[in-house]
Structures are given as structure tokens and as C-alpha cells.
């Protein structure tokens, strides 16, 4: 087992999940309750990574993070190194790739809350932040949990985007899924088997957790 890759993958999945939830909550709020006409377009963009081949997304991100774009040059100017082939680059790529897994459950959770409950909070003088922290988030805790688990599992098993923007640098960008690829290339099938089983178990446990939560929600 490539323990360095395991720790890097766990770190990537944890950081990505935490940051993604911070973005998904306000975005989902806007998608659930916003009235802007172009909301549908934002919804489509937020869902795009679900359908788009990871290599396509990875390619565009690689170009964006490189010295050919103003954004890439600005980052190099700021830090002295490109965003591509770095852990920070992997986090950004993973966040974009897993965005639908965070936004969809949270937006669905917010939309499922009865309007009368939100009206009651507004009539009682609650500010939007008070509504968010005392009403929306507690009532959507199952959706938030689903989003966190799905993002974590999805990032754990990510391959295409990570390979495109991070390459295969041990300790810096080599995640478990890339380690499996390397192990198979080197005919180390026993190692590949162990790593693959670990990813399989994590993904299966994540899905069991999500479905148990949904069943619990349905039964009351």
C-alpha cells in the first residue's frame, strides 16, 4: 500500500469537502430561493462536472492554471510557482469536479423546507443569517451530511482531473487512484488489489451512510 498516496488522498478529500461545503451552502441557498432569470444557467454550470468527461475538465483547468492565462500568470507572480502540479491546484480541481455532489443535495434539502416555516422566521424578525443558521441548516442536516459524504468519497476516487492537472508527483499530487494506475503499469497486481479494495470499501460505506440517512429521513 502506498501510504504516502493514502494520506495525500485523505488530506485532499478532507480539504475539498470542507471548502466545498462553505461554497455549496450559499450557492444552494441562492439556487433554492433566488429569483434571478439566469439561475437556470448557473444551475447547469454547477451540474456540468457530473456529465463532462474528467479529462475535458482537467484540460481546461490545466490551461487556466498555466502561464498562458492571466489567472495562471497572476498566481505564478503571487507564489512563484504554477497552480498546476501543486496540492492547491488539486484542491481547486477537485472542488470544481465535486461541485454537483455538494450543491445538488444541499439545494434539494433547502427547497424541501416548507415556505410557511421560512415565512414564520421572517415574520419573527430573523435576519437572513439567523434563518440560515437556526432554521435552514438544522433542518437540512441530513442533506449536508449526504453532501459531505458524497464529496469525500468522490474526491477519494478521483482520477482524470487529478492526473491532468496534478500529474503523478509522489507526496505532492499522486493520489490513491493514480497509485493504482502506476501499480498496474508495473504489474504489481497485489498492491493494486489492496488499494482498489480500500477505495471500493470507502465508496461503498459512503453510499450505505447516505442511503441509511435517506431511509431515516423518510421514516420520520
Amino acid at each position, binding site marked *: 500500500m502506498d501510504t504516502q498516496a493514502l494520506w495525500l488522498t485523505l488530506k485532499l478529500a478532507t480539504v475539498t469537502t470542507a471548502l466545498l461545503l462553505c461554497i455549496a451552502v450559499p450557492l444552494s441557498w441562492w439556487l433554492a430561493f433566488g429569483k434571478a432569470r439566469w439561475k437556470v444557467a448557473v444551475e447547469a454550470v454547477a451540474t456540468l462536472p457530473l456529465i463532462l468527461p474528467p479529462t475535458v475538465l482537467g484540460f481546461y483547468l490545466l490551461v487556466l492554471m498555466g502561464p498562458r492565462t492571466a489567472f495562471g500568470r497572476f498566481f505564478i507572480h503571487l507564489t512563484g510557482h504554477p497552480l498546476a502540479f501543486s496540492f492547491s491546484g488539486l484542491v481547486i480541481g477537485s472542488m470544481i469536479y465535486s461541485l454537483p455532489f455538494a450543491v445538488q443535495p444541499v439545494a434539494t434539502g433547502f427547497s424541501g423546507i416548507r415556505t*410557511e*416555516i421560512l*415565512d*414564520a422566521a421572517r*415574520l*419573527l424578525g*430573523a435576519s437572513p443569517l*439567523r434563518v440560515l443558521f437556526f432554521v435552514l441548516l*438544522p433542518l437540512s442536516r441530513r442533506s449536508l451530511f449526504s453532501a459531505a459524504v458524497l464529496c469525500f468519497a468522490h474526491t477519494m476516487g478521483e482520477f482524470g482531473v487529478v492526473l491532468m492537472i496534478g500529474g503523478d508527483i509522489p507526496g505532492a499530487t499522486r493520489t490513491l487512484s493514480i497509485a493504482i494506475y502506476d501499480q498496474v503499469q508495473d504489474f504489481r497486481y497485489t498492491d493494486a488489489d489492496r488499494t482498489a479494495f480500500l477505495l471500493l470499501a470507502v465508496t461503498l460505506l459512503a453510499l450505505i451512510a447516505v442511503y441509511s440517512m435517506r431511509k431515516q429521513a423518510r421514516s420520520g
Partner: protein
Amino acid sequence: MAETAFLTVEISHRIGGFHLEAGFHLSAPWTVLFGSSGAGKSTVLRAVAGLLTPHKGRVALRSRILLDTSSGISLAPGQRGIGFVTQQPALFPHMSVRRNIAFGLHQLTHDGRELRTKEMLALFRIEKLADRMPSELSGGEYQRVALARSLAPRPELLLLDEPFSGLDAELKTSILKDLSTQTPLLYVSHDLAEAYQTNAEVIVLDNGRIETQGPVHEVLAPKRAQLLRQLGAE
């Protein structure tokens, strides 16, 4: 009567083919907004509460302008000093009865919140329910908690959109008596017998227009006589 009015309402609003054009004032401590289903009663209440912004209108509560579309004023629902209990009141399902009642008291100190919550629990005789969750309440208990929660922040006016449908008449009367001692009420009803029993000022809304306004025995007498004739009692 208009000189002593504490609430004046002028609303013009269109929803699909329905056109609401309502103007009235409140001066009595207890007013019933009477009309058949679809007359526009709930829309009027939602506009007064700030949950709906009419296309044109002006709403003033005492000296405060709550809404004036001509000058772009529209206070948020929580800034209007109006409580509103809807047809299907929704308690916060993840909070106990005590926390539900205290929700609108966040601007008070901890002690102030505790005191006011206790007052509300006592007024509605629901002290024993304080630590229960909304899912553990009966229909009548649920309504009482919703009313206590709306009344807790001391609103200058309480709007009630048929919140007692499904409750027996005795319980309904007892709740309304508790309420009327606390704050002026604007109470929506489509039930002639119920409106008659209240002995309040009545505003009749018909098909989006205010038909008449006055004491219940004057305003609803023709409708009562018509109903009694239909029932063959006269």
C-alpha cells in the same frame, strides 16, 4: 372612524385573472375580514404582513409607513411589528415549544426572553408542553403554541388567517378571548356563524373588492337573514 384608525390599507394587486382592489382601515380592537373562499382575504393579510408586495399600495400602522409603492418603501415582515398566524401555522420542527416561543425574542436579554416565554406559556395554559417537540403536540396545542410564538414579540397587530379551522367552537372562543386582551386582531373568516359570534367589527370582501365595513350585526344581518331563509327557519 378613520381619524382613530390605527391601520390603513390601500392595495391593488393582480394574480392571473384575479384583481384585488382593497381599501379599509382598522379602529376596533377586533376586526373580522369576512368573505367567501377566493375573495382575496389571504392575499390582503399577506400584503399587510409583508410576505407579498402588491403592485400598488400603501399600508400604514399608526404613524409608521409599512408600505408605499409610490415612494418605494416596503418594510421587511420582521420590521412591521405585525404577528401573523396562517391557516397552516408552521412551528420550527427541530425546536421545543419553549424555543419556538423564544425565537422572535432574540433582541431581548436572556432573562427577558425567559420571562416573556413564561408569560406566553402561562397565558395560553401550555406550561406543561414547554419541553415537548412540535411533533408531540395535538392540533389544538399546536395552534396555541403558534399563537404564543406570534404574540411573544408584542406585535402591534395580530393577523389570523383562519388558524382555528378544525378546532371545536369552545376552544376557539377561549383562544380568541386570550388573544383579544393582548393586541388588536384582524381575523379572517368565511364562516358566517363564527363571524356573527365574535361581535366584532366586520369588513366584507367580495371578489377582490371591499363591499362594506361596520358592526357585525349591521353588516352581516342581510347575509344571516338570507341564510336563515334558505334553511327554512323564517
